């Protein structure tokens, strides 16, 4: 059914359909509407879930862990400082191989208090063992949330999945969204290591130097296996519901000489910039990175690459740029733009491409645009 809804409301709608047994969450702008909506669904009996209104994000993830290990489906949502506050527990969730699904509304980190879009919050979680997908429309937020449950709970994965949507730009925008009849798209959860008092076991007990690396490798092996599961899930989603997704969304890349790589709404707005550039005779294309973990193999051979980072790793560079440079030998122009919700238009993006200086880093709004 087609309707108009915000990104937040739509994520809540997807969660309602996935019907987790336990939702434990703590409010934070600009995510709050998700948990408010879920609380409303639970209270009004539209969702057969237990909603635990925890006292912090650390406890939100801890409660999801405690629930998940009993073998039930779980969900939480957070943003920015909330995500960082649960950082210890996000590591735990992945290490404990729990298929928790979380929506993270990407938001800048303080100080100062800034509630607007930035990806640094989620990118600081990139080494935790969570799968991470970044969406670019309300529809995609809905679709990705549904798929996240199926991917996380697949027995070849059993790792948590974080669905990222840009603060305000997606969380609060209203767009058409086509909801689906889910059917059996998300199979019943079966956690092979669920706690069972009839079969006592120790979970996360003291583990020596001769064993710990095996568990770490197991996470990585599943992370690698998740590539196929993601592909299968997206294929099945397309077959059932008609909407196609991939690790990247490529736009006019085939004959492009220069490719813009970005995530989230910037990656979508870049397509408008590409059309402008093409009209000027510049052979440009865009590649919107959807999955950051597992990180896909990007086909950038022979292209100039303009990477827009809505994030930064101080003392090193744009995080996306750094990730891509580790994978390709192609020349990169690294643009840092959109931090703390800084306005970046398709005209600006076209400008980055026109005036690119390969091998250099450019801070939008700080450096003079040459």
């Amino acid at each position, binding site marked *: 059914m087609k309707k*108009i809804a915000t990104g937040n409301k739509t994520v809540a709608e997807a969660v309602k359909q996935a019907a987790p047994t336990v939702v434990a969450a703590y409010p934070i702008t600009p995510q709050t509407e998700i948990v408010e909506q879920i609380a409303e669904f639970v209270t009004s009996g539209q969702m057969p879930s237990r909603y635990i209104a925890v006292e912090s994000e650390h406890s939100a993830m801890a409660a999801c862990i405690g629930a998940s290990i009993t073998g039930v489906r779980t969900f939480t949502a957070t943003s920015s400082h909330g995500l960082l506050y649960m950082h210890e527990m996000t590591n735990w969730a992945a290490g404990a191989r729990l298929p928790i699904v979380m929506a993270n509304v990407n938001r800048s980190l303080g100080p100062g208090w800034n509630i607007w879009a930035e990806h640094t919050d989620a990118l600081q979680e990139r080494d935790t063992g969570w799968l991470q997908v970044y969406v670019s429309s309300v529809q995609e937020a809905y679709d990705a949330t549904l798929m996240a449950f199926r991917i996380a709970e697949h027995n070849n994965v059993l790792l948590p999945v974080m669905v990222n949507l840009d603060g305000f*730009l997606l969380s609060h925008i*209203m767009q*058409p969204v086509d909801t689906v009849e889910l059917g059996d798209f998300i199979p019943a959860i079966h956690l092979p290591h669920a706690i069972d008092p009839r079969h006592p076991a120790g979970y996360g007990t003291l583990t020596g130097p001769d064993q710990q690396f095996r568990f770490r490798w197991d996470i990585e092996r599943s992370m690698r296996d998740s590539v196929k599961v993601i592909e299968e899930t997206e294929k099945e989603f397309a077959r059932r519901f008609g909407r196609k997704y991939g690790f990247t969304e490529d736009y006019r890349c085939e004959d492009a000489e220069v490719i813009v790589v970005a995530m989230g709404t910037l990656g979508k*707005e870049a397509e408008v910039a590409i059309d402008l550039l093409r009209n000027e005779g510049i052979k440009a294309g865009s590649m919107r990175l959807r999955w950051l973990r597992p990180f896909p193999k990007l086909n950038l051979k022979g292209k100039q690459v303009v990477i827009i980072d809505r994030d930064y790793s101080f003392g090193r560079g744009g995080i996306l740029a750094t990730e891509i440079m580790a994978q390709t030998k192609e020349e990169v122009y690294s643009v840092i733009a959109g931090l703390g919700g800084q*306005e970046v*238009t*398709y005209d600006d993006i076209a400008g980055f491409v026109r005036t690119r200086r390969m091998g250099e880093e450019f801070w939008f709004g700080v450096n003079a645009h040459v």
Partner: protein
Amino acid sequence: MFEIRIHSRGGQGGVTAARLLAMAALHDGKYATACPFYGAERRGAPIVSFVRIDDKPIKVYSQIRQPDMVVVLDTSVMDVVDVLHGLKKGGRIFINSAGKREFAGFECRNVDLTGIALRENLVVSGSPILNTPVLGALASMGIITAESGKRAIREMFSDERNVKAAEAAYKEMSA
């Protein structure tokens, strides 16, 4: 793509108006996005919300700088905000006002939405409701169809007075 900026005061329903407009456009078979100005909303403070309508999927998320149309739900905002800022040459204006106004180089229409809301007894907590009747005015200007406007209103509000107010605004504008 047709871009609209709606000026109102916090609490007057500017964001809801944007949403209803987007829903109506969707019913017209178009694509639409509606967004509030991103920030803390304060009751009574001048606020803006935005609507984009297009025949193809909308990929733009940055704010509307050069709208095709400006909607003013509360003329008192005009004392503190330049509502014409960035409005495209020949752009359209709708003002909730009983008196006709002229702006050189723009097409300006008006109707007294507040009066209509009061006549229809469409008042909540002492404030006349503007965000539903405005759809009638915009339908009259051809931004959406009247049918889609009414459908959008009915999907969101069960009180039929909302539809009647929109119809009244449509009639007055089209007269």
